[in-house]
């Protein structure tokens, strides 16, 4: 074979070989996405709920601190008091439900939050600031967030269809009872269930919000029932409408609102628990508890409570629940 193969061509081939071989080592690649894809910030696990002693549990949990007598003049809260801090801040910050029709719900038409709980809070707001008070700052919180929000002082008051009970008194303080609710069940119209006992017999799936007294009640008194737990009570209505639960157990106050949103649902049976509602307040703010109790006493006496009841609950008027006092700051839990 001749040695005269063209040198230029050989050079080109050499370059091309090099190009190919070099290509072998330096692969072009797409890097993976730079940072985590979705934010999965889980809420911290709730601390264990302290339990009342048997002796304490036997006492009436609705006992609250004596009301402030007389109420300070609106807009002139005593120096150093919790109310004064709120007044100086310029607004009352409250935790409420955003979706409990008739108690605390955002009206989608007006965008306003309204309901029984809200009207009670407005009375407290007026008592602090006087006529034409600044707008309340509403924080819509879930059931499970009610106690933590008070404990960390993110809100001044919580009016969120919250039952007063002994265990909760270990973590927060309550006003006197402002509404006498009771637990009932909501079932599909024509389902044949007439109450909680039927559901227990059938081993039905019953939805309850996590962190509620209703869940505790189901677990202890009706273990046969399969509890379907949801973050919030309204999520229970979704679960019910989607067929993931046969029934919902909750306070009658909440269930009436559900039945109003779903013509194929009905509230059945008698109330099988007493759920006295109180306004939640930070455990250390005894002065605010007393103040709120005075406001509640006032509206019980002057007919305002009846008017609020007529607006949001309607039907036959009832007597406002009587306030029970006698608790001393020392007997938390009692």
């Amino acid at each position, binding site marked *: *074979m*001749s040695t*005269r*193969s*063209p040198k230029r*061509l*050989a050079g080109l*081939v050499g*370059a*091309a*070989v090099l*190009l*190919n*071989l070099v*290509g*072998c080592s*330096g*692969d*072009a*690649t*797409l*890097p*993976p*996405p*730079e*940072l*985590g*894809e*979705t*934010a999965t*910030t889980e*809420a911290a696990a709730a601390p264990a709920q302290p339990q009342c002693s048997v002796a304490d549990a036997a006492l009436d949990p609705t006992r609250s601190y004596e009301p402030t007598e007389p109420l300070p003049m609106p807009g002139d809260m005593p120096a150093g008091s919790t109310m004064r801090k709120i007044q100086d801040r310029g*607004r009352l*910050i409250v*935790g409420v439900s*955003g*979706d409990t*029709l008739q108690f605390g719900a*955002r*009206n*989608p*038409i007006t*965008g306003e*939050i309204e309901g029984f709980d809200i009207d009670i809070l407005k009375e407290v707001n007026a008592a602090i600031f006087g006529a034409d008070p600044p*707008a309340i700052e*509403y*924080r*819509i*919180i*879930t059931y499970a*967030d009610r106690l933590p929000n008070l404990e960390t002082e993110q809100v001044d008051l919580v009016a969120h269809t919250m039952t007063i009970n002994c265990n909760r008194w270990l973590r927060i303080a309550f006003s006197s009872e402002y509404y006498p609710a009771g637990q009932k069940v909501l079932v599909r119209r024509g389902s044949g269930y007439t109450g909680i006992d039927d559901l227990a017999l059938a081993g039905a799936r019953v939805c309850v919000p996590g962190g509620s007294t209703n869940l505790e009640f189901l677990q202890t008194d009706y273990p046969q029932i399969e509890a379907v737990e949801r973050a*919030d009570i*309204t*999520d229970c*209505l*979704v679960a019910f*409408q989607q067929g993931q639960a046969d029934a919902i157990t909750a306070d009658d106050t909440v269930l009436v*609102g559900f039945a109003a*949103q*779903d013509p194929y649902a009905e509230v059945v049976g008698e109330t099988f628990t007493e759920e006295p509602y109180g306004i939640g307040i930070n455990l250390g703010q005894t002065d605010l508890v007393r103040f709120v109790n005075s406001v509640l006493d006032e509206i019980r006496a002057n007919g305002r409570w009846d008017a609020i009841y007529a607006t949001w609950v309607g039907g036959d008027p009832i007597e406002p629940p009587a306030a029970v006092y006698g608790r001393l700051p020392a007997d938390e839990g009692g």
Partner: protein
Amino acid sequence: MTSGGVGGSGSFAGSTPARMRLLAIVTATIAVLLALFGWIAVSRRDQALDRTGDAAARLISVQQIRSAVIEADSIATTSFLLGGLEPADQRARYESRLADAAGGLALLFDGQAGNEREQLVEASSTLNEFSGLVEQARANNRQGFPVGAAYQRQASALVRTDLLVSLSELEQQARAEVNDNIASAHQIGWLLPLAGLITLAAMASGGWWLFQRTRRILNVPLTLGAVICVAVVGYGLIAMGDSVGRADDAVTGDLFLADRDSQARVGAFQARSDEALTLINRGNGTVNEQGFQQARSRVDALVNDGIRASTQRDLGNLFDQYVAAHETLRALDTAGDWDGAVALLIGDSATLFDNFSADIETSVTSRAADAQRNLADASSGLSAARWAILIGALSAAALVAVGYGQRLREYR
């Protein structure tokens, strides 16, 4: 190949003409094999590049679906704050994004098998479930039923914990496929030069043997055959090197940037949804604000990265303006002016966000188109190279036969 036929007198195979004939056959066969392997090498690179292009197209499609889904969710979430007063253009945009997502999934479904197929089926049904929940949220909302909020929450949760997760898995698969295919396109580089070198070695050693036997310096057909081999192998190598180089450029250039922009776009919509959720979860949106900040930092890193050409610096500015509006919005909400915050969200903040979102959409679309076009163009020269190698190497085989034939005839 032995250098001489000294020992093998007598037998047919041992005679010089017989060896010559054998050499001719072996060398010509090697040249034919060069034609075959050359064809295979170029074809395989061509196919690997085609697969890279397909994977890139799939990556872009999945990203478009993801953007469509997350934008639909973001619109639904924001509109929810407006209740029944949802603007018609927002509604239209929501529906078109939903249609984009559904259509994109249907197109992706074509030609998929196994695991990916299942994932797509699942994604489609989740998308249906999402749109159903959004409709239920709207219907309840329009009647003033607060359960609408719960449906909306569930719809958003479904998108975030389910649909977007499986779509980002599909996206990651497509990304891996691009990388695998471009890597395999690189790997076939040795076949052609090796075959070429063996052919040339066979021709050269045969030529040397002939030269020693016949003392004839130049065998024209054999030399011509060698020149043709060198030429077509060189041409083939240049074409293959060029194609893979162009594909590399398309992947590390336009596709890389399209990928980043697309991630930034998804992150921006996530931030926007979280922003609306901070207001829907009125005063209790700490988790959503964390989500916003997480998404914001991701988008920030992607749009203010220094990689971007100076003509596209605007994108970073636009995003910064939107983030500034978000800070104002949070300040309003924290100070208790929820209504003011909502007004800002659907007013100035929406305009700023739309400016950014329109810009990044343009950027993603043009870069994705460039990437796909460049990837398709990358292998355009390979077809000619494949034929050149085939024809060239076969001609070389023929020339080998002719060249040895001349010398054989001289023995008669």
